[in-house]
């Protein structure tokens, strides 16, 4: 309780408030720009946070995460191009509504739904994360190993790519995490005699490369796309009739989004798809979906923003990223010397609660920013690609260099960017690679500790109830995508 209150009081720090406001505004700009999203935005912001203390650094990353997830709706509604993948379903009804001259109403509804979804998920985060952490205190290495394996198996069902390709990408990430000196035995692995690889491959340059530079190359092929913005007078708050029509949808989607977010590796995109479909399924007028139904906007937006709070639950309580952006935030925590997990809620409880309260505040901040500034942000959406991306390129490179002031990191950015592009081209998602890279070291450590603990009798792991449960969930996660795809196909029919 003390940490809960002191976390709230920490928000009174004017410096932290200023950083949160700047990150929120930056996040809205990033989310509004097609091609840039919360994940590559967070990867770009990460080097800038190095000179900060841990609390403002991580608070700014989560602020960007929440606000960029919301801002994807601006482009989805005004130019029919989702600013972030999570807003793809917002296009379906947001743009038709904007074309009918109700862009302000559509944006107002998106802002309010996003805020409610975000706030409810943060409340859930505040309650669930410490409980989960308390439960995780009983975990020993075999349980942690099984849990990490479960987290990695969830990569199979990530939005893009087929399950085998996603798992190959994740395994490749785990493999990259093994490069460097083995901490226990000091044996060099895959360093090829290069001292630059002695400490392993840094995950921040890899993330800047696979999320930032690979997107730059992808953008090269979409230069011919013409974007036309629907005109808008001002953002309108929903009226009483609108609220009456959508309150159930918002609450339902908030629950769906939070739950999907909590599942390791599943993020806002899946949440918004399910939120939208459930809104349609429960609607009295499903035939209006796709033609400007306000429940469609509310269902999609409440779910994708609720997923941000949900995704932070496993990230902070267990050290397993709940989404791609959460993986970047996890990298930020590690760079600042903070090891997420159960101990965070006892040893660094003030830190954890300050982050929770920051997320809460950011959700309220973008309500204000969205309502007052959406018209300005809408103009930003038309920054030409040929101007935007060369600037992103420069910031990516200098940001990666600034991490360790090493040109080797610049090379990693370039190489991982090109690898990331070809992976995406051939149907491999880069998100599993990022998550595998972060979890790889932990996975090996836990396996090693388990083997020592169980006297090399690995099969004893299956006799422990909790680890057996996680192994069963792993199998379910691996088989799940087949059933999942069938379910989604049926829903979209």
């Amino acid at each position, binding site marked *: 309780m003390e940490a809960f209150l002191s976390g709230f009081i920490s928000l009174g720090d004017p410096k932290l408030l200023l950083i949160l406001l700047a990150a929120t505004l930056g996040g809205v700009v990033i989310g509004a720009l097609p091609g840039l999203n919360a994940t590559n935005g967070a990867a770009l912001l990460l080097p*800038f946070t*190095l*000179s900060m203390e841990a609390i403002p650094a991580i608070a700014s990353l989560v602020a960007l995460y929440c606000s960029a997830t919301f801002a994807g709706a601006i482009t989805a509604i005004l130019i029919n191009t989702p600013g972030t993948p999570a807003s793809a379903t917002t296009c379906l009804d947001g743009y038709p509504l904007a074309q009918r001259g109700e862009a302000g109403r559509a944006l107002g509804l998106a802002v309010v739904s996003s805020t409610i979804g975000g706030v409810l998920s943060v409340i859930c985060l505040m309650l669930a994360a410490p409980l989960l952490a308390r439960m995780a205190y009983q975990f020993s290495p075999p349980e942690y190993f099984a849990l990490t394996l479960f987290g990695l198996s969830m990569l199979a069902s990530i939005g893009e790519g*087929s*399950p*085998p*390709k996603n*798992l*190959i990408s994740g*395994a*490749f990430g*785990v*493999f990259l995490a*093994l490069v460097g000196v*083995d901490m*226990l*035995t000091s*044996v060099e*692995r*895959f360093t090829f005699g290069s001292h630059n690889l002695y400490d392993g491959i840094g995950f921040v340059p890899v993330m800047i490369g696979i999320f930032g*530079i690979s997107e*730059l*190359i992808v953008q*090269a*092929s979409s*230069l011919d796309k013409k974007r036309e913005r629907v005109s808008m007078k001002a953002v309108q708050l929903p009226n009483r009739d609108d609220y009456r029509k959508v309150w159930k949808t918002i609450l339902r989607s908030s629950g769906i989004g939070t739950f999907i977010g909590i599942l390791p590796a599943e993020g806002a995109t899946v949440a918004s798809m399910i939120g939208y479909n459930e809104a349609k399924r429960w609607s009295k007028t499903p035939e209006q979906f796709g033609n400007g139904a306000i429940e469609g906007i509310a269902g999609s937006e409440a779910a994708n923003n609720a997923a941000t709070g949900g995704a932070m639950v496993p990230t902070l309580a267990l050290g397993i990223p709940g989404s791609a952006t959460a993986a970047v935030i996890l990298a930020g925590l590690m760079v600042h010397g903070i090891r997420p997990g159960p101990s965070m809620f006892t040893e660094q409880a003030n830190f954890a609660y300050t982050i929770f309260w920051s997320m809460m505040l950011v959700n309220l901040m973008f309500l204000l920013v969205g309502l007052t500034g959406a018209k300005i942000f809408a103009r930003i959406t038309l920054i*030409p*690609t*040929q*101007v935007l*991306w*060369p*600037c992103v*390129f*420069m*910031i990516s*490179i*200098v940001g990666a*260099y*600034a991490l360790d*002031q090493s*040109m080797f990191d*610049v*090379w990693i950015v*370039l190489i991982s*960017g*090109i690898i990331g*592009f070809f992976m995406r081209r*051939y*149907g491999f998602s880069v998100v599993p690679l990022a998550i595998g890279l972060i979890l790889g070291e932990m996975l*090996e450590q836990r*396996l*090693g*500790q388990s*083997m*020592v603990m169980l006297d*090399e009798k690995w099969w004893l792991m299956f006799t422990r109830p909790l680890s057996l449960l996680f192994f069963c969930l792993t199998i379910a996660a691996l088989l799940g995508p087949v059933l999942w795809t069938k379910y989604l196909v049926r829903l979209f029919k």
Partner: protein
Amino acid sequence: MPPILKRGIQPSDFPQLILILILILTVAMIWFDPIIVDERLDSKTLGSIVLLAVFGGLTFIDLFLSLGVTAALLAIFWTERRWYVVLGIGLMMPALIFLLFDQVFEIRFPRGVLTNLWYG
């Protein structure tokens, strides 16, 4: 290696396990979802990758010179024709980024043709 470290998994065990897993998954991929190369890279994409390689080569002369040249070339290659915009991307942006990181974040960049002018 001391006997105590010979217990448990060895440094080579886990990477081997992962490589075997990748191999199995590759076979599964070939079976269920093979890679299909249906179209060649378009000229803009290929040119952008080449520009990234050019950037890599130029960094040996100067990081910021390389950044400015590559960014300006990228903008031109991506059909930007307004000279003042290209100038802004190639000159103003690298200078601003350099000053931001040098003065605010106190980052020391590698010496090169241009950075030597600043560092002396």
